[in-house]
């Protein structure tokens, strides 16, 4: 358990910056998630912390001490991989015992700690099995036990759930979360799945092209995305450039105080778009035709094409038969001003709208 300080980490590959001035603090005991699209540098950052990649510049500190020059096998970090990385020639128990054996712990202690770790991941009576006799989900549990049994200072996980099917993914992610809470291990978790990140994390770091866009709690990231990229990457979001071009919101439709801010991009979540009449007077109104309605059981999404080719989605909670039959009709959408997000058109940074 330890706090991690990443100071101005840079890592370049020929023709590309994999990590661009990454500067973060991960608090002791925290469940910290690196989130971003594939290729944004998450794995590179994680492996830099683990000691498998040497960064070009910057500092990595764990519990206040620099570890940049420490070889990977001395860093005492547990690692969990997307492909499980289970040793196929060793039994489940021997897999879990591996780290304790390299530390030269006495045999009875090893046996006891291995058994306890296996019980924690609900594999208490699978110790004698060989890995190929286990399902993918079980193998990943073994990997988890193997990483945690050494009481690592930090637990590193690189997309541990990506190879599992959807149902198992949700199940195991809850287990990981509960375990991490009960053992209070500082955990750095990598995923490209925003829903997973929102569900599991204390804090999320959203990355793109090697740069950090925002570090905040899941709620804050969802409610107040710091950049246009975060807004579009997390959850569903209607993005509306302002201007006269195709697919944009006409500047003339905006209230005077918004127009005054200069060039920007507005955004609104589908669940904040109101379909039909509304008493909320403090909203933008746009007219459009419903192109299709996508039904998803408890909810539905209306796809609306507005003037100037602007395309908006509206969320319909518990859609009525009438709402589902809206296709082809023209509707009036209301976008409440206090629900609008605004981003600078030049640098994509969040702009606070005047109340």
């Amino acid at each position, binding site marked *: 358990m330890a706090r991690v300080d990443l100071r101005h980490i840079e890592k370049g590959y020929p023709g590309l910056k994999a990590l661009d001035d990454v500067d973060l603090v991960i608090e002791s005991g925290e469940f910290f998630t690196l989130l971003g699209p594939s290729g944004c540098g998450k794995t590179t950052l994680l492996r830099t912390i683990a000691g498998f990649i040497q960064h070009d510049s910057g500092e990595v500190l764990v519990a206040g001490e620099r570890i940049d020059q420490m070889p990977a096998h001395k860093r005492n970090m547990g690692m969990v*991989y997307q492909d499980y*990385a289970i040793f196929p020639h060793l039994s489940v128990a021997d897999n879990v015992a591996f780290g304790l054996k390299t530390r030269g712990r006495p045999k009875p202690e090893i046996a006891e700690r291995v058994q306890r770790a296996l019980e924690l991941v609900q594999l208490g009576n699978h110790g004698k099995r060989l890995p190929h006799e286990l399902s993918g989900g079980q193998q990943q549990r073994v990997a988890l036990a193997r990483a945690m049994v050494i009481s690592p200072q930090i637990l590193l996980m690189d997309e541990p759930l990506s190879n599992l099917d959807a149902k198992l993914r949700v199940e195991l992610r809850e287990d990981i979360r509960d375990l991490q809470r009960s053992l209070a291990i500082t955990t750095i978790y990598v995923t490209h799945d925003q829903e997973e990140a929102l569900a599991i994390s204390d804090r999320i770091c959203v990355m793109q092209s090697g740069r950090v866009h925002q570090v905040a709690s899941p709620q804050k990231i969802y409610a107040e995305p710091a950049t246009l990229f975060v807004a579009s990457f997390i959850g569903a979001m209607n993005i509306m450039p302002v201007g006269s071009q195709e697919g944009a919101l006409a500047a003339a439709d905006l209230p005077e105080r918004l127009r005054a801010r200069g060039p920007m991009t507005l955004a609104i979540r589908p669940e904040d778009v109101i379909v039909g009449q509304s008493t909320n007077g403090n909203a933008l109104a746009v007219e459009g035709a419903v192109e299709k309605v996508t039904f998803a059981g408890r909810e539905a999404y209306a796809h609306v094409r507005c003037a100037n080719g602007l395309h908006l989605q509206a969320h319909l909670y518990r859609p009525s038969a009438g709402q589902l039959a809206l296709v082809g009709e023209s509707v009036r959408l209301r976008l409440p001003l206090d629900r609008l997000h605004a981003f600078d058109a030049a640098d994509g940074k969040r702009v606070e709208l005047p109340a």
Partner: protein
Amino acid sequence: MNSVRRVDVWTWAMVLGFAVIAVLLVWPLWSIVAASFIDNRTGVFTLNNYVSVMTRPLYQTALINSLIVSLGGMAGALALGVPLAILTTRYQIVGRDLIGTLSVLALVSPPFIGAYAWIMMLGQNGWMRHGLAAIGIELPSIYGFFGILLVFSLKFFPFVYLMTASSLNTINASVEEAAEGLGAGTIRRLFTVTLPLVLPALSSAALLVFVLSLADFGTPSIVGGRVRVLATTAYNLFTNEMGGNPGLASTTSMVLIVISLVVVALQRWAVRRRNVSGSLLRRPQPRVLKPFASVMAHLVCYAIVLAASLPSLVVVYTSLRKTSGPVFQPGFGIESYTRVMHEVPHVIANSFSYSTVSVMMIVILGTLIGYVLARRDSPLAGTLDSALMIPYIVPGVVMGVGFVVTFNVKPLEITGTATILVLMLMIRRLPYSVRSSASILKQIKGSIEEAAISLGASPAQAFLKVTLPLMLPGIIAGALMSFITAINELSSSLILYVGRTMTMPVRIYLSVLDGEFGTAAALSTILLVTSGAAVYAVFRVTGRKESAFV
């Protein structure tokens, strides 16, 4: 780049790899290049050697002959291997495993054994020649192109068969069914769909056969008669009683190297264009043939593999014939074996000990270097990889010449020792071992080793405890195959041996030239049985994978 730039055990493995390759590959090769440009008597730079090789009829003929036997061997191997591959993968053939095994055995038996067995069968007094003559079939003399091409075709077709068959097995059944659904008949389907899809494997196999035929020394020198090829010419130039002609021998070697280089480059180019095949969803199912067609198909398949196995059978049979001195008597006996045990026990011991020692070195070095190549993609590793191509393109005779001209001066004066033979066996086979280790490693996920390191194992410990155990079956199979090639090596040993360090293939070669067929057969049988046992062991380790041999 993807690893930490600290000095660890793998840095040293790379240094060791470079040292071995520099001393045992680059230096001898450089000696040959240098010798080809130097006048034997005056020691000054000259192009005369090249002028001689280009203009003198002797060398021109050798060059043309070499191209004829290489192309002919390739054509023969294709003519036997492709039909066999198609029949066994697409139609119900009884005993497919037996066919595969016989092909592998033909592959691992040394070509010079085939050469002299065919002399016994088809020579002037051969039983087969007489038998065929009795039914009105007159064959040309076994000595010359006929003999060389016969031996090459029957020796090298298994490469074509095994590589093509394994490629044929990875075509999704639906592809050929789709062609059939579109109205393409059997023959049309074969030429418009199936063969184009296996063309990469087919062309690789064909070019491999070309290179092997070009490099082969034993066959043309035993059954070549008056047909001289480049390999035999280089050997004769070098070992000539009149002191030899290292300059011309080296120049002839250079011609061999350049031809191989061009062909291997061609092969690589052919393989590089291999389109990435999708995942294998449904294996093609062999069809049942109509009775008459089925009988014909079986006849063709078994005729091919039996013809290929015939030399081995003849050799074993000959070794068990009763002899008195070099003369065969009616009946069976073990005189040939008692003679070799009596007269040349050290030859047998040499073969086994040299092969064993060289294989141990191959395994250790090959695994270490293979690891560096597979896990570190630094430019240096790339250089190492290219340098390891050298033995693929340099024939044994040429490597032998290179070793002699390089290692006959202090501080590395090792000509005439067992060391030079062991090092030669080692370096000739090392690249194959490196390649196979690297490809095994590429199938072992890097994350497994990293996981071990993150659990506190040092890089060396992680390798020993996790990676090595996973590589072991592959390493053992590779070691056995290295052993097979090492114990059957003729051409380079023939150049490097002295009386004390003679090996079984050398002794067999000399016995055949002296007409001592009994002892040659006894020694050959020992080689065949040893190779067969090794093949059996490889099957045990790999779970019967014939493709492991190509």
